[in-house]
């Protein structure tokens, strides 16, 4: 029995059978306040101050909020335009996984926007000033601020709503602005803001200092040598051609670390001179989640500095969804131009682009049977799907990871239409919500994806799902057990690569050669 069926607050209401099966099921009756109790822990003053925000809410907070709105409306066309032009058509209302999971109408994308739009209208538009009740405008009060904090930290900034909006209104942009406004009056979120502080101080989200990284990487080198008989290096702070920047979860979490081993093997097999950096030991950029360009830039600049100091020619980003967005859409913009790098390669590049290139050039050898236990599916991570690209054509971000999986696995099946590619469902933990204080929301928001997975599990016997996002991987390994899957049913794409790759001079290569010998001389084998 899955969590969904056991869940007391849904089971009691005798949901229709499709609620348990249809990944895109939503409650036709919105339930006001159904998610109002789900609140993340607020940040302590010292963590706010480290990011340049006030530690406490100032006396004149209302003024500051309105000034900030005025400021944002002058700086971001998205903010101004999106607040103006929504026609309340309703197309987005059933598209948010948090609405599907909680039925709270303030989790409908337009409902979420309206929390801010109502105040914007009251203070920045004529109709809102003259006829507030006619246009749904409201005063800025303490309760409003509270509500913002609750519901703007129930959005994973996944952009699914933006796909279905006739004007492309992206609630993620509004959420980012709202979080920036909240931060400007000292109301921040503990999880995101503590982490950004760690990056400023140490260089990564986990606060791993250089010695810790060194010993982890050494352990990994030993492990790979034991498995393959080949000395594969994981260099740190060495002069090289390629700087690999990867989410720090890759250094210790499961299944992330198996992905890191995969990257190292691919670099080894292609003969690349590469390095990690202790200074820029984090691809994640949580400042994007709180909509702060200043802080986002401060994190991005670490990558620039590392690239200069290590004299590299290329920057490659490891498997992570929002990190790939932060790199793809923002790195050049915030920390560029990167004219000191090799102009023959895009800046930055995704590790999947690198691996797929190498596969196409015939530089990698695989034994797909190593992955024959697995019937795979692939979870498109929101930020990769809807806020970036891979390769040189639109939609390459969908094909390249699938191509890699198919190159290293014999069994691959897609989840149902409407839940993949640009319509992919969020894992439920993105956008800075990957914290235990939001566990209830994470389970509910993850349930549509879990139902989609159940579909292919039942139909095709799919038993593993691969992803290229550190947050997705952590989130799934945490929530999958509630839905009848095992913690390790989520895998890294490069973990599959790592399993199947046959390194020159490795034990695997020898075994393969022996097998081939036996096949060629069947009599001798008898």
């Amino acid at each position: 029995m899955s969590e969904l069926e056991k869940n007391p607050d849904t089971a009691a209401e005798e949901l229709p059978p499709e609620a348990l099966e249809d990944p895109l099921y939503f409650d036709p009756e919105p339930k006001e306040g159904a998610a109002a109790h789900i609140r993340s822990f607020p940040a302590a003053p010292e963590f706010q101050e480290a990011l340049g925000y006030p530690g406490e809410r100032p006396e004149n907070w209302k003024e500051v909020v309105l000034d900030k709105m005025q400021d944002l409306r002058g700086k971001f066309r998205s903010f101004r335009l999106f607040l103006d032009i929504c026609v309340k058509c309703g197309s987005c209302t059933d598209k948010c996984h948090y609405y599907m999971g909680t039925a709270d109408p303030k989790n409908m994308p337009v409902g979420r926007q309206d929390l801010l739009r109502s105040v914007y209208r009251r203070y920045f538009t004529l109709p809102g000033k003259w006829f507030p009740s006619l246009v749904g405008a409201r005063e800025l009060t303490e309760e409003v601020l509270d509500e913002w904090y609750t519901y703007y930290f129930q959005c994973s900034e996944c952009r699914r709503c933006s796909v279905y909006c006739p004007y492309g209104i992206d609630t993620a942009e509004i959420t980012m602005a709202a979080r920036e406004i909240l931060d400007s009056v000292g109301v921040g979120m503990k999880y995101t803001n503590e982490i950004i502080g760690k990056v400023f101080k140490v260089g990564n989200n986990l606060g791993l200092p250089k010695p810790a990284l060194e010993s982890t990487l050494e352990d990994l080198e030993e492990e790979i040598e034991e498995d393959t008989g080949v000395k594969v290096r994981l260099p740190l702070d060495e002069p090289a051609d390629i700087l690999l920047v990867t989410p720090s979860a890759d250094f210790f979490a499961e299944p992330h670390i198996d992905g890191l081993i995969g990257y190292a093997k691919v670099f080894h097999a292609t003969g690349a001179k590469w390095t990690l950096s202790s200074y820029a030991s984090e691809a994640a950029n949580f400042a994007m989640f709180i909509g702060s360009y200043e802080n986002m830039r401060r994190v991005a600049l670490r990558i620039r500095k590392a690239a200069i100091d290590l004299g590299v020619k290329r920057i490659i980003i490891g498997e992570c969804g929002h990190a790939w967005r932060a790199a793809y859409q923002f790195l050049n913009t915030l920390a560029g131009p990167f004219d000191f790098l090799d102009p023959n390669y895009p800046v930055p590049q995704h590790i999947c682009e690198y691996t797929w290139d190498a596969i196409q050039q015939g530089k990698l050898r695989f034994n797909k049977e190593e992955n024959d236990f697995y019937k795979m599916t692939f979870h498109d991570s929101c930020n990769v799907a809807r806020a970036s690209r891979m390769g040189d054509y639109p939609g390459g971000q969908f094909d390249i990871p699938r191509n890699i999986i198919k190159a290293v696995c014999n069994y691959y099946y897609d989840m149902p239409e409407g839940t993949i590619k640009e319509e992919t469902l969020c894992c439920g933990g993105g956008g800075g919500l990957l914290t235990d204080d939001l566990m209830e929301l994470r389970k509910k928001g993850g349930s549509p994806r879990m139902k989609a997975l159940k579909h292919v599990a039942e139909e095709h016997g799919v038993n593993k799902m691969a992803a290229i996002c550190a947050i997705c991987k952590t989130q799934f390994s945490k929530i999958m057990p509630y839905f009848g899957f095992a913690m390790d049913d989520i895998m890294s794409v490069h973990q599959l690569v790592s399993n199947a790759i046959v390194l020159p001079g490795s034990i695997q290569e020898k075994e393969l050669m022996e097998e081939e010998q036996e096949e060629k001389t069947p009599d001798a084998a008898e």
Partner: protein
Amino acid sequence: MSHGLQWQAGGNDGRMSIGFERVGESPVLTTLFALLYYVAFAIFAGGVAYRIWEYWNTPKPANIPTTPQPITRLGVAWRMFKEVVFFESLWKGNKWIWIFAQLFHASLWLILIRHARYFLDPVPTLVALAQPFGKYAGLTFVLGALGLLARRMFVPRVRYISSPSDYLMLLLFLGIGISGLSMTFVNHTDIVAVKAFMLGLMTFNWQPLPASLPLVVHLGLVALWMIIFPFSKLLHAPGIFFSPTRNMPDNPREKFHPVPWLPPVDQVEYDPPHGS
């Protein structure tokens, strides 16, 4: 001035008639509507121009299209075309809203083209060709608006996000549509006189407005529509062309796109390494 004379000539009985018959013209009504239309048009044109200027001048500090997005300008223009004409994203989102919205907007276009005959002399061929369709487009326009209204009233999610102004906007369109239809199908208005009035407005050579209730309602509501346009969600019409998730080519790696308010990268300070 000449129009003074024409008032005398046209406004023979000098009183406004109420009823579906065209009983005459009233100088008061003509002046009122002439002035109303000048004001409404000024607010509409000035307001929309101002909004466009605002959107144009507000930075798009990063390249944030909702991907997959075309890489070239031409590709983006094609996506925008599909969005504006076929409501591509809405089609993906909700088929019912799409049907009613298409019915509503396509009819509106036909109606607007048909109405051009009141402003253009001689009437261009295209407008003449649209005449028979434009006539019935009024019906599908009302049907579309009713469909949208029904969704707003009866679908709980849509009801939740609707403000009074959202209903009023649809009622406004229904009022315009029904008053217009009644002049076409129920009680004919002297459209020759209406055309003379409109052309007169444009040439500052006022002509009398026929005083019939449906016409007064129709023209009054249209003027109201023009006045609220720049202050309301009707801005979606020019706004869509400025939407950063739809109108930017997907090229952040290929093209440097600096944030206008951040100092250039050679003037920044880097955080010191850990432990230093």
